[in-house]
């Protein structure tokens, strides 16, 4: 445990630049959106306190916004506002609205009627009543709303990293993808601390006495603007091209780290989720992205893979990884899963992915079509000799493979099969496997090597990016360490790759990663 802590501090120390940047971005995102939410929510709250008829509608709409899952809300924003901070801020702003509107409304309507009557009877105008009586008296309630909104925003802002808006989510989601607990904690602990800190500070403001509250209320907008400006501090640099890398790619030796050490590539990089990366490249918001060589969107969005001339991306041959006790429990399983072995090469996989990712055909249909065309499909036998649990990560290719395996198991054996698809990232998927939540899932040799076994750099180098050596290494490693078996490879190599728009690559004459580096350094 002590060693674990040591390495966490070590990691945070080593990454302190990034950590600071992300923390500032996180604070910035939280408070820009909060500031805007106050600008919109406060007048709206006042309005509905005046016009009771509107209150149901406005609170209803704000309430519905609140119930939209945050990832989905971010997704809705992309077609409207693209990627980056804009959609993230708008999404956060929408989440912050409800508590602010509701508390403003509650606060103002809750002011004692006798006091309001006295204010009217003294000869105050409506504006004077609002600023001198209603707002000051409802300020503790309004502040409570702002406090709730702040804590919500600190939490939701971690998701902003999915759409290239930065923040501590970069570490959290990078860590989940990379099976790196230290990285997750390096993002999660500061995020939690921020939430606790802001909650505490605002609770102090909320409980100030009346006199001090006046000063605090005046100081609050200034403070909000100041904290908002944090977001822009780290963004004061740029380069000719913009790269969008997934959080996982950012932290991997065979990813951005390798690009920096082996190629010396320096490019303005933003962190973005895999789900929107390709589209952003297609729409020219990004120039270089980290993709997978078999991704269907490669074809859909007319992108080209840059050749890895220094060989930093190790082979990523896919094969099912199965717990040894599951193989014992289901004796027919291995034979059945191996039916697929050698059947799918790179171009077939890209084609299949294209059908799901771009033509939006269901993975189930794509899987069935493929099996039928290869004379592998058999009707389900509806057997009841136990249920095999199949896992998959959260992208199309894995959904297709999981469906194929499910059909094969149902058609060739007496077992039933269930799929647990959409396990986000390697860590979650692998943990599900080791903790007996699933029986197998398709994994890639490179991931098994670098994300799970994590051997010293020397060992990785000695494998030299060789397909068979890597496969043998992970096979023995998994057997020894986890009692998990790698079955035969399916055939295709879904390696990491850098890609650009075909047109732009042609114009700039970039074919390899070395070309890219040369272009960036020219002039």
């Amino acid at each position: 445990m002590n060693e674990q802590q040591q390495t966490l501090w070590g990691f945070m120390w080593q990454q302190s630049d990034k950590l600071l940047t992300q923390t500032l971005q996180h604070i910035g995102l939280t408070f820009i959106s909060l500031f805007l939410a106050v600008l919109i929510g406060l007048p709206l709250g006042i309005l509905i306190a005046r016009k009771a008829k509107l209150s149901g509608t406005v609170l209803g709409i704000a309430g519905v916004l609140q119930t939209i899952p945050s990832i989905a809300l971010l997704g809705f924003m992309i077609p409207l506002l693209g990627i980056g901070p804009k959609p993230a801020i708008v999404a956060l702003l929408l989440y912050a609205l409800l508590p602010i509107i509701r508390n403003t409304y509650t606060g103002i309507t809750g002011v004692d009627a006798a006091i309001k009557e006295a204010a009217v009877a003294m000869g105050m105008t409506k504006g004077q009543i609002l600023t001198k009586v209603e707002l000051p008296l409802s300020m503790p309630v309004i502040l409570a709303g702002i406090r709730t909104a702040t804590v919500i925003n600190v939490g939701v802002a971690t998701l902003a990293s999915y759409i290239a808006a930065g923040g501590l989510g970069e570490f959290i989601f990078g860590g989940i993808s990379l099976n790196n607990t230290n990285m997750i904690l390096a993002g999660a602990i500061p995020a939690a601390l921020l939430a606790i800190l802001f909650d505490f500070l605002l609770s102090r403001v909320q409980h100030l006495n009346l006199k001090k509250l006046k000063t605090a209320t005046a100081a609050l907008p200034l403070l909000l603007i100041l904290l908002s400006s944090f977001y822009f501090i780290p963004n004061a640099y740029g380069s000719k091209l913009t790269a969008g890398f997934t959080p996982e790619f950012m932290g991997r030796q065979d990813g951005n780290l390798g690009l920096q050490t082996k190629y010396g590539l320096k490019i303005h990089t933003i962190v973005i989720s895999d789900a929107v990366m390709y589209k952003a490249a297609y729409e020219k918001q990004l120039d270089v992205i980290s993709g997978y060589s078999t991704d269907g969107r490669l074809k859909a969005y007319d992108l080209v893979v840059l050749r890895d001339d220094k060989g930093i991306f190790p082979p990523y041959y896919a094969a099912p990884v199965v717990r040894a006790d599951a193989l014992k429990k289901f004796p027919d399983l291995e034979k059945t899963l191996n039916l697929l072995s050698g059947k799918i090469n790179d171009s077939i996989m890209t084609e299949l992915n294209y059908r799901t990712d771009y033509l939006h055909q269901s993975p189930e249909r794509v899987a069935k079509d493929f099996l039928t065309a290869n004379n592998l499909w058999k009707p389900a036998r509806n057997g009841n000799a136990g249920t095999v649990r199949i896992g998959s990560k959260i992208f199309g290719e894995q959904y297709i493979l999981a469906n194929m395996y499910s059909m094969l198991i149902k058609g060739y054996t007496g077992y039933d099969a269930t799929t647990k698809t959409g396990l986000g990232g390697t860590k979650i998927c692998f943990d599900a496997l080791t903790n007996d939540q699933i029986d197998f899932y398709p994994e890639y040799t490179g991931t098994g090597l670098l994300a799970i076994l994590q051997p010293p750099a020397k060992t990785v180098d000695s494998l030299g990016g060789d397909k068979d050596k890597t496969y043998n290494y992970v096979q023995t490693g998994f057997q020894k360490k986890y009692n998990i078996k790698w079955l035969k490879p399916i055939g295709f190599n879904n390696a990491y790759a850098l890609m650009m728009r075909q047109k732009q690559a042609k114009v700039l004459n970039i074919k390899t990663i070395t070309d890219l580096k040369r272009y960036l350094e020219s002039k």
Partner: protein
Amino acid sequence: MIKVEQINKSFGKVKAVDNISFEVAESENLILLGTSGCGKTTTLKMINRLIEPTSGNIFINGQNILEQPPEELRRGIGYVLQNNGLFPHYTVAENIAVVPQLLKWDKKQTDKRIHELLEKLHLDRSYLNVYPKELSGGQQQRVGLARALVADPPVLLMDEPFGALDNVTRAKIQAEFKALDELKRKTIIMVTHDVLEAFELGDRICLMDKGKIVQCGTPAELLFHPKNDFVSGFLKEQRLQLEFRAIKAPQPPPNGGEVPDMSLWAALEQFKYDGSKKENQAEFEQLMSAFYQYKRGQPHE
């Protein structure tokens, strides 16, 4: 000074105030008396336009208040609420200074006036920077009165001003209220449901029921010339006390004091502490005979 002409107020189908007219002379103290729901508070609130009448007109000094901007009108009328309505986030000084601030008085003038009022209302200066909730009910009500009086408005509207106080505090504040010279110059309309208070403080009383005025007159007129059974019934409970309050002490007062206009009750109250002295005996009998004399002069109920 104040003239109310045939005002009506309906809330939906309910007629809260039904065709009421009355006049208040300058520096007169008019009481609107009645049970709750009789429309007395609604009537009062129409005079500073907290409630707008459905129909009818109200004139103050010959000017139709419905043609004035309401904020301006209200700054010229003092208003005292039952539960004082002090702003909890303002100190005592800030509360009293609300209207001067709206009228844009300079700070010196405001401060001078506040100190003057504190003295008159027997409030200690140390209260100035204290928040209302730290004061007793009686003190809060005094601050409320100071707030209403600060700009020296000619008209004062009071909505059950002593209603929320305990009996002892109420008696004390009522006595101060009567003694306050500043109030003697003012035209006051006060709402109460307390018959004794009405008789104690009112020059004239309008007894209301179901949105209408049943009878308007001096306390003695109401007591000895009731217009109908409702009026006499309303006053029956505390009849003797009311009579003592309604009847003026004989002129000049029996002890030759300087108080020129005093009810019999007030005169009797002076015996409270030195009733044992011998020479008072004669005066007491004098007062009593004045009472019988007055009674005999009235037609019997």
